[in-house]
């Protein structure tokens, strides 16, 4: 198992940027502590794919504000995975042609909340 701090540090070191990447999620530390070494390696390899622009982003045309940006200035990278048959999602948010701002990790319910805040989800289903 990887520790949650080790997990954050590894991702921070991979993206190497001055802007402080936020790690968010209602049970982030607990979920991170469940991640095995092999699952963590897969996640790091996915992050590397994001950095190398091999992973396709979802862009949203909404003009609504999201923190310091408009939603249409952002792109979201989604990574689903499961641990012991429980599905989790990572949502990695980047400002277009710029830095990464948020790394979300959570269960389906948390993921739905993030989607709503990014205007990706219109209804409750």
């Amino acid at each position, binding site marked *: 198992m990887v520790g949650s701090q080790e997990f954050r540090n590894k991702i921070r070191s991979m993206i190497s940027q001055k802007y402080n990447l936020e790690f968010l999620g209602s049970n982030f530390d607990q979920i991170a502590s469940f991640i095995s070494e092999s699952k963590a390696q897969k996640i790091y390899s996915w992050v590397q794919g994001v950095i190398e622009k091999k992973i396709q982003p*979802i862009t949203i045309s909404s003009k609504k504000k999201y923190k310091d940006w408009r939603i249409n200035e952002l792109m979201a990278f989604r990574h689903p995975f499961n641990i012991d048959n429980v599905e989790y999602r990572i949502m990695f948010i980047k400002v277009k042609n710029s830095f990464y701002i948020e790394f979300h990790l959570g269960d389906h319910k948390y993921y739905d909340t993030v989607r709503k805040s990014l205007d990706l989800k219109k*209804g*409750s289903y």
Partner: protein
Amino acid sequence: MIIYNPCNEELIKISRTKKQIKPIDKKINIIMIDFNDLHSLFYHSVSKSCIAKNILPKKPLKVTITDYWNVVNEAIPTIMNEKDKYHKNIRFLILYTEYFKNNRILDTYELTREIEKFKNFKEILEYVKREIPIVINKSIKKSYIKKYFYTQAGYYKNSLEYESQRYLYELSHSIAKGAA
């Protein structure tokens, strides 16, 4: 009220409350539908497949081209990332396309059969490129299409280094050109 959807092994809970229920079997996914979303294409499709559909609440269907484009916009990058593990991710894409193409709401069984017709993710991308410009152009006013899809193309223009965004840029241009 709870509906069981055997196609996806999921329970669909229609409720006025936000209270969560936890299944004993963790493999079963629970989808919450708020009473305000009973007009959605998703609910109309699921309820059509239900044996006890006569006792389910009903609301008239409300679907817009914007809803449809949001589905396409999210499905394309997801399909390209997941490659041939696309089955779960294209349900909305096929549901909306078939609705606008044939004015038909597929139930969950019909939807599964439609999805099984595709051999791989490349066939889906070809299907989208071939069908969607025709489907959208016959569904709404040409003036609206030009305005909406040229605007959409503008959003993709800054991210053309990504294959999915290039695909969506070309697709939105192709839809707008169809209305010219």
